[in-house]
């Protein structure tokens, strides 16, 4: 006598226990603390904060630990948590011009006010495995500190704008910007929502799309006007006070990419700007975002829309890795009811096909 498969409850409990055991790994080794993750796997934490849309190093580190290092899973944990938090009023726009800069480079100028600041970067390292890191080494010697010059570091895009060569962004209205996490995306999507979507979008997806615009799918000729990373102050204005107060500092990476634009009858040829901003230190993400942001402007600028990166729906509906991973992975869920009807269907049309073929064969005889 057949008994239907039962015991989902017990199976789930056992699976969860096994997962916890795997996560911990060999108990002969000391357990990794969230603080260690936050300190020593900092760029993973940055990526999880960016894609999780939540700037909290400790929680992001916890998510990475809980997710066994699966960064998309970790971003997902952080988002689900973020969602349960009470909302304060929206912050004032952060002033990246006033950033306490740790890294700032421009590819368009050899030097500019404030200078180039290389900062902590992989850019000029030789990618040779450092076997010394296999052993528990001593703390590396810190570099010699140079005096901060205190010189202001104006944004390169502002320098270009002074010359009138940079396209002016259309003036915004005073309405609060729409919020992607509260309202669904309309199409074509306004820039504010595009940027929100890209800022939390998957780094790998944006990287591939940005790359495609460089390879002819979108016709981009980009220059990094400026890439800067450092700390910015977050200010809010409580209605009862009426003036802004500081909540503290967060780390962000900003990329301004310039691109030529041929102009039209009523607009002179000029530079246009693709913009990327990412929580934490994530240059690749900010740069890819800036490329894709520019590509998505094609429609507004009256350029021909031919490439995937220029297609609002294609880019924005597929950039979110929490959505994407959910739908791809849900294929693991049972689908036997649908599959059963598919089986019956195939059998039925197969029978017709065979009958028809036999009919033809008989007719031919």
């Amino acid at each position, binding site marked *: *006598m*057949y*008994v*239907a*498969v*039962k*015991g*989902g*409850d017990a*199976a*789930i409990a056992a699976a969860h226990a096994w997962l916890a055991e795997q996560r911990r790994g060999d108990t002969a080794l000391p357990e990794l603390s969230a603080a260690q993750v936050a300190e020593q796997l900092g760029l993973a934490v940055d990526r999880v904060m960016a894609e999780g849309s939540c700037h909290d190093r400790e929680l992001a580190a916890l998510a990475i630990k809980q997710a066994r290092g699966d960064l998309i899973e970790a971003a*997902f944990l952080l*988002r*689900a948590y*973020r*969602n*349960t938090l009470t909302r304060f009023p929206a912050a004032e726009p952060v002033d990246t011009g006033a950033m306490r800069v740790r890294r700032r480079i421009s590819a368009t100028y050899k030097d500019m006010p404030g200078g180039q600041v290389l900062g902590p970067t992989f850019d000029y390292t030789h990618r040779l495995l450092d076997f010394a890191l296999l052993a528990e080494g001593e703390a590396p010697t810190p570099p010699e500190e140079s005096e901060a010059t205190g010189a202001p570091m104006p944004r390169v895009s502002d320098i270009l704008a002074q010359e009138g060569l940079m396209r002016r962004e259309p003036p915004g209205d005073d309405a609060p910007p729409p919020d992607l*996490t*509260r*309202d*669904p*995306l309309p*199409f*074509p999507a306004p820039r504010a929502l595009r940027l929100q979507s890209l800022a939390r979008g998957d780094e790998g997806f944006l990287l591939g799309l940005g790359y495609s615009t460089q390879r002819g799918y979108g016709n981009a000729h980009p220059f990094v006007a400026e890439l800067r990373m450092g700390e910015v102050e977050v200010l809010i204005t409580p209605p009862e006070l009426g003036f802004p107060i500081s909540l503290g500092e967060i780390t962000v990476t900003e990329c301004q990419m310039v691109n030529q634009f041929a102009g039209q009858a009523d607009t002179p040829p000029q530079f246009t700007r693709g913009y990327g901003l990412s929580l934490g230190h994530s240059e690749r993400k900010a740069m890819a975002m800036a490329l894709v942001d520019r590509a998505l402007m094609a429609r507004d600028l009256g350029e021909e829309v031919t490439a995937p990166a220029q297609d609002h*729906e294609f880019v924005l509906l597929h950039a979110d890795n*929490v*959505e994407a*991973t*959910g*739908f*791809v*992975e*849900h*294929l693991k*869920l*049972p*689908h*036997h*009811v*649908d599959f*059963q*009807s*598919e*089986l*019956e*269907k195939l059998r*039925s*049309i197969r029978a*017709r*096909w065979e009958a*028809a073929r036999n009919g033809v064969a008989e007719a031919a005889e």
Partner: protein
Amino acid sequence: MTASAHMQAPDTDPGYNFAYLDEATKRMIRRTLLKAIAIPGHQIPFGAREMPLPYGWGTGGIQVTASILGPDDTLKVIDQGADDTTNAVSIRRFFHRVAGVRTTTRTAEATIIQTRHRIPERPLTEGQVMVFQVPMPEPLFKLEPRLAETRRLHALGDYSLAQVKLYEDIARQGEGGSSYSHPVMVNHRYLMSPSPIPGFDNPKLHMSPALMLFGAGREKKIYAVPPYTSVVSLDFDDHPFRPVRAPHACAACGSTTSYLDEIVTDDRGGRMFVCSDTDHCAENQMARKAAE
């Protein structure tokens, strides 16, 4: 459905609001549901939230259920027709944990039934609410992927593309229609995806006394079929829509009318067929025993 404002069942997780979502979000979703009920079959965009379960696991359905759930409700959750499949267990547990509501596997006892891919065999009654988990709310998406364009087609009531697709199926295969997710016309106006239920279940939507709510989390759409609403599967007059089931009797309860799962019993082609709806199957078996 009863009001649920800030009521905490005694044994629920105190770290979360009743049924997980905050009250403002629930109100927003209920407003969307009212719109959806007022325009049967029409997809209403809503600000879907991230849920602690992944997209594709039923986040749309869970948000709908969370928004309409009250402490007096009795919840049934099925996946592929069964209460005991892992995803159904997981969602039922979730609501038990964050809302502390009574749960059941009995279709007759449930006030809210959240489902993935099936409608129970036992006829639903007035006052019951079905909540469908929907992966892809747009019935035209395979014919026209652009949402801006499909919205226009819905506005114009222009569904000739869907009819052409059906025509092509018949011309090619000798019979029409998709085996599941077969599109339906709701209230003679909107073409709607019934979610990936097998075509076998489509007729159960027509003039049902129960309220049917559909939630798509990732796609951020809600739609509904109010009680006693006409729901007609897309077809041709001379090729009427034909719901299919495996032509066997259930090996467990003997039913010859229920939708069956095919069970592979060995690697030599052995097959057996049993009810997909586990509650229905159990009821049939009890009735049989009682009769003996």
